[in-house]
């Protein structure tokens, strides 16, 4: 099970956080969760909020947006609660992208290898426990990431994301 990257989009369609892990985590290196949280392991390499990912973020958002529209359009008329979150994942021969959207329009996307079945619960956990705790309840974080290019640079959020995906 490998997670390649993790993305957060706000309701203004801006990418407010992106994290790409370039080095694959060895299953043997993450045997104990405490070890990975104390010492920087292989999972901590890669890029955080990299400028190179700006175009990729736009492409990814476009893909998610189109697929979500298609899925909403084709879905049989259902309750409004489920229709916001009807898209679960999409896959190519190389990767699978998992998608979770909150009621406030925040979009969480995680790219993984094809053997990962479902990350909906994990993405929900990231929102409930990491995003809400470190960003929403943080008085120093802006309420709305209105300006283009404004990103989450909060250390505890970045650390929390790394630790959570490191344990997966």
């Amino acid at each position, binding site marked *: 099970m490998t997670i390649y990257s993790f993305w957060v989009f706000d309701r203004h369609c801006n990418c407010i956080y992106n994290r790409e892990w370039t080095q694959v985590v060895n299953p043997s290196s993450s045997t104990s969760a405490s070890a990975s949280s104390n010492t920087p392991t292989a999972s901590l390499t890669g890029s955080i909020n990299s400028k190179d990912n700006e175009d990729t973020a736009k492409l990814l958002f476009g893909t998610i947006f189109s697929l979500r529209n298609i899925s909403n*359009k*084709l*879905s049989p008329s259902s309750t409004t609660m489920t229709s916001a979150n*009807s898209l*679960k994942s*999409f896959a190519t021969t190389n*990767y699978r*992208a998992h998608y979770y959207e909150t009621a406030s329009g925040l979009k969480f996307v995680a790219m993984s290898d094809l053997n990962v079945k479902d990350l909906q619960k994990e993405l929900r956990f990231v929102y409930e426990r990491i995003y809400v705790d470190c960003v929403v309840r943080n008085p120093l974080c802006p309420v709305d990431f209105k300006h283009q290019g404004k990103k989450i640079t909060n250390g505890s959020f970045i650390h929390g994301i790394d630790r959570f995906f490191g344990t997966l």
Partner: protein
Amino acid sequence: MAIQSLYIINKSGGLIYQTDFPLPTNSSTSTSTTTTTTPSLTRLTANDYLVLAGTLHGVFAIASRLTPTAVKLTKTPPPSSNILPSYNNSGLRCIETEQFNLYIYQTITGLKFMIITTPTVADLNYATDVAETAMKSCYEVYSDYVMKDPFYELGMPIRGKAFERRLWELIVGK
């Protein structure tokens, strides 16, 4: 996993064939199942289907651009030894939603077959393989009943009755 719908998209992204299949229903509760347990897809207008096909054609290409760097560095495309392999090396292959799953199969000439099935409980990788087999069979029918039709113009909508009849025999079984 039941096939609900089939789309055929030509190499330039135009929809050339679209059909919806009836879901298999239990004979005892035939009236209620269609409305409650197995809801079928919403019927769209003909124009909406064209837009949908065009969008998926674009997203298909974009999805291959999104391949993570880690995969690009390590992975080589798996060798395909089976007959009629999918020529979809890095594009979109499967979309999973709450209401349906969508699978895409690309032939060597750039023709895309898409089927929409009911959500599967089985392993997604396995379901993708099963769906691809089904689309291969549709491709065989296409080769036999569309490509060999002397009145068919390449890339134009498929109107042949024989193709449609054979396809229904294949998917619905009647």
